[in-house]
């Protein structure tokens, strides 16, 4: 396998922009990534796209690339729940690593405000037993959060903390949907959605897109001296839930992270910055241990000690995360990679993690009766 490098990244402003289609948003992000890379778009040899829940057609990447004069190359659209974007970047990583292609692009885009899902709680597919009974993503995470309180000693304020932190971080990110710092009280006193999760512990429905250009070392050296390497990408899928597993441990993501660390020789203690799925505030808390940036049973204390704040030992979601930057579903799995690349290049602006050399991007999603989640997800390790 060859080393794979991040040559260019781009994203749109995240927010509510119903005047743009998914294709429009994808084009904006792709154009930004091409400009960031400083390449002629016709150099691109392969392209992946993704959209997840919007109502547009099924040819996102073809539409986006044709607007840049790129046609007649291999193009594939990916659909994989909240893991759509990270799945698409994973496929491109494999193409470059294997030597099949030397340079390619991935674009994740979503217009959620124009989707038929807009304003509803995301739920499993029709005919899924738990879905028929009324499970929703907030309910499913609500049950994890309740165990965090009753079994693991978290307080309601602990559950709100990632939301406090990420809203504070988003104030420093020009692309963020929400730029307003929130107090613990404001978060806990907001409308209850599914106990113990309140509205301000839920990510918003967001429009936006992100794009990444990956390439071989030879190509990267022609265009940049700021080499950021995507050392390893590891995808996982859900597993049967029998016998009853500990839903607080996120063991599938832990397995993906373990594999990524083993394949790269990177020790978890070397990770300087993490961007990850925080659709609901409590999700961060059990992910810290799963990603090995602290010990599982010390996650709550480490969080209270500020380990994951900007300026802390290993900042998590310096961008503002899904909670405050926003969560255009298919874009988010690409966007975590764009953010880590910017952080490692030292180009993240006001929310820069000083001196970051090793970064981790994670995204996950999906729900199905009889399975322990996530249904799709991945972990990627990057270095400079």
């Amino acid at each position, binding site marked *: 396998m060859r080393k794979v490098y991040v040559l260019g990244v781009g994203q749109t402003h995240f927010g509510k922009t119903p005047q743009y289609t998914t294709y429009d948003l994808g084009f904006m992000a792709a154009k930004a990534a091409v400009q960031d890379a400083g390449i002629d778009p016709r150099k691109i040899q392969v392209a992946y796209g993704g959209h997840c829940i919007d109502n547009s057609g099924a040819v996102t990447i073809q539409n986006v690339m044709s607007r840049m004069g790129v046609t007649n190359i291999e193009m594939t659209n990916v659909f994989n729940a909240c893991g759509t974007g990270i799945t698409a970047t994973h496929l491109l990583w494999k193409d470059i690593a294997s030597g099949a292609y030397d340079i390619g692009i991935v674009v994740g885009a979503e217009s959620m405000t124009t989707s038929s899902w807009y304003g509803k709680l995301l739920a499993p597919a029709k005919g899924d*037993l738990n879905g028929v009974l009324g499970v929703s993503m907030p309910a499913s995470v609500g049950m994890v959060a309740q165990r965090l309180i009753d079994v693991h000693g978290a307080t309601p304020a602990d559950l709100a903390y990632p939301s406090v932190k990420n809203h504070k971080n988003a104030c420093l990110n020009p692309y963020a949907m929400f730029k307003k710092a929130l107090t613990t009280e404001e978060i806990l006193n907001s409308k209850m*959605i599914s*106990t113990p999760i309140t509205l301000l512990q839920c990510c918003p429905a967001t429009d936006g897109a992100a794009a990444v250009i990956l390439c071989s070392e030879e190509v990267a050296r022609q265009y940049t001296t700021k080499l950021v390497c995507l050392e390893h990408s590891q995808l996982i899928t859900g597993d049967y839930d029998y016998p009853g597993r500990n839903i607080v441990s996120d063991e599938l993501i832990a397995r993906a992270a373990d594999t990524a660390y083993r394949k790269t020789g990177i020790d978890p203690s070397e990770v300087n910055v993490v961007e990850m799925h925080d659709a609901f505030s409590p999700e961060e808390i059990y992910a810290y241990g799963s990603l090995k940036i602290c010990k599982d049973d010390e996650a709550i204390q480490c969080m209270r000690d500020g380990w994951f704040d900007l300026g802390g030992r290993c900042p998590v979601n310096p961008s503002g995360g899904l909670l405050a930057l926003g969560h255009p579903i298919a874009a988010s799995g690409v966007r975590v990679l764009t953010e880590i690349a910017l952080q490692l290049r030292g180009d993240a602006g006001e929310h820069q993690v000083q001196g970051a050399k090793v970064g981790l991007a994670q995204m996950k999603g999906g729900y199905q009766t009889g399975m322990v989640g996530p249904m799709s997800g991945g972990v990627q390790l990057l270095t400079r």
Partner: protein
Amino acid sequence: MERKVILDGIIEERDGEYFLVGGKCKKCGRVSYPSKPMCVGCFSEDVEPCYLSKRGVVYSYTTTMRPTSKLEAPCTFAYIDLPEGARLFTPMMLEADEKMKIGSEAEIVFCDLWEEDGEPVLGYRFKQVKEEGAEV
């Protein structure tokens, strides 16, 4: 069974009593709910229907404030671990001011959950079993 059920094949009536139906692998003994055509443990296709225990333990719970199914909101849901090893998601049946508790014992109550085309639809809820001697 002639009655409309929330999902085909999950509830069976015998001698006037309802049972929750899972699938038990005849080869390795693993039980799944709802039943799957192939055993998720050993991939044998020799899976037979089996009646599940009517009592289990509350693994976790949440109260959802907006309607997410045909059930009225707010609605308390729980994961219940059955002795057979299956974990099921269920709406709860709570008395006024009753608190949920992880680890408490809960029992299935077969009941109509909603109507479709004017016909009642059979499903189930679980209710927490009160400890003996506990004040109501």
